[in-house]
């Protein structure tokens, strides 16, 4: 019969705090960069210039249809050889996670934009707005309302995806957990705690998303 001992984990408290800090910082970075990449890819896909559309399509499909773990490993080991550059584990991780997230964000953003009634763009054009003004002042503010819930959802997935960077020895929450597990021989307690920490960080976020959805629904 296994005897659980969570008390012994107290020794590693700072390891967990540091790990959680790295995980949160990673999430913020890859969500922000991913959103920018996603917006660019979405606009490219909606562009009237065909080569831009093909490029965006190729990017989205390549990153959507390959596993994130494979991308991480590829960016860290294969890209430096292919491009003749040096890339740190953190750099490769941010790059792979941002591009992976961006491919999903792009489809959400594109979907939000095309869901806005055509008459809105026509009315903006009739007033004399350029396409860029119409997008910024009329289309995006409306589309954003519809995009926020799926974007938040995808960002929650991205938060959990950061755990994969531990394979590149980036000291995130999961990696620090592994360190503690090797040191303490208490992996069951450690991974339970790691799971609880992920949950504790994410559950409030899902709650905020749900509340936001409700508020958006009533304001329409």
């Amino acid at each position, binding site marked *: 019969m296994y005897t659980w001992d969570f008390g012994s984990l107290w020794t590693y408290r700072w390891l967990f705090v540091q790990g959680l800090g790295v995980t949160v910082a990673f999430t913020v970075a890859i969500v922000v960069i991913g959103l920018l990449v996603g917006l660019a890819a979405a606009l490219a896909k909606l562009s009237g210039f065909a080569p831009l559309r093909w490029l965006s399509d190729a990017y989205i499909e390549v990153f959507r249809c390959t596993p994130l773990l494979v991308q991480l490993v590829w960016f860290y080991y294969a890209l430096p050889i292919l491009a003749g550059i040096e890339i740190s584990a953190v750099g490769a991780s941010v790059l792979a996670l941002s591009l992976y997230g961006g491919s999903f964000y792009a489809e959400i953003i594109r979907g939000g934009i095309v869901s806005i*009634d055509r*008459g*809105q763009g*026509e*009315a*903006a*054009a*009739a*007033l*004399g*707005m*350029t*396409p860029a*003004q119409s997008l910024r*002042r*009329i289309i995006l*503010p*409306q589309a954003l*309302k519809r995009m926020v819930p799926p974007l938040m959802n995808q960002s929650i997935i991205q938060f959990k995806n950061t755990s994969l960077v531990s394979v590149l020895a980036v000291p995130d929450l999961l990696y620090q957990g592994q360190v503690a597990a090797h040191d303490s021989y208490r992996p069951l307690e450690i991974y339970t705690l790691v799971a609880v920490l992920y949950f504790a960080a994410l559950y409030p976020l899902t709650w905020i998303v749900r509340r936001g959805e409700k508020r958006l629904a009533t304001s*329409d």
Partner: protein
Amino acid sequence: MTDAPAGAKIEIAHLAKSFGTHAVLKDVSLTVPAGGVVALIGPSGSGKSTLLRCINLLVVPDAGEVRVGNDAFRFGPGTRLPGTTALARFRATTGMVFQHFNLFPHLTALQNVMEGPRTVQRLPKPEAEARARALLAKVGLADKAEQYPSRLSGGQKQRVAIARALAMEPAVMLFDEATSALDPELVGEVLGVMRALAADGMTMVIVTHEIAFAREVADRVAFLRDGVVVEEGPARTLIDAPRHPDTQAFLAHFHRRGEALTS
């Protein structure tokens, strides 16, 4: 265009437009003098809405000429399409009112009317707001300024949309079936605003199914069918005594309805 009447505000010449293989407009010409009101009537699919949308180049014609005021565009093989900036500048001088209002739902009535002057004309906020409030008062909606479109009736929405178009101080106003989506009891308030605009001397092109209104307010009426202007003439003459059999057949439907209503 040497035979154009002096003072013509809008000149459309030999306009052609196809969507795919379907020719929606075939060699259409139309002239509207400054301060004139022209109504475009005809069955659905006759091309009257497309013609209207070609006047502000919301639809880019395949061939022909479009002139509004001093801005002229020529279309056809060998001509370059105007760029987005040139198009935007041109459209800023023409106001358009849509069948489904197309108000911006994320903005209040006041903000809807201010949007053009603020974004396109870069007017300072106080001036844009003063202009917008004056226009909302003009269409009888001063008290609805802070309301969002979802709180307005169809007739109120369309009056806000007219104020929004007028806020750009356009040289001409284009109405695309402005009352077709309204409940019958709300049609009158919108027609009232349009009637007042015409009386003010606004140059207007109106696509409409309101034949009685066209007869009353328009100077001239053009009847379109299958992408061509079948008959064009003074409003009363054309509606009371159409010469072309197609026009007679089309108007007979309305006259019959009118008789049924009065008897």
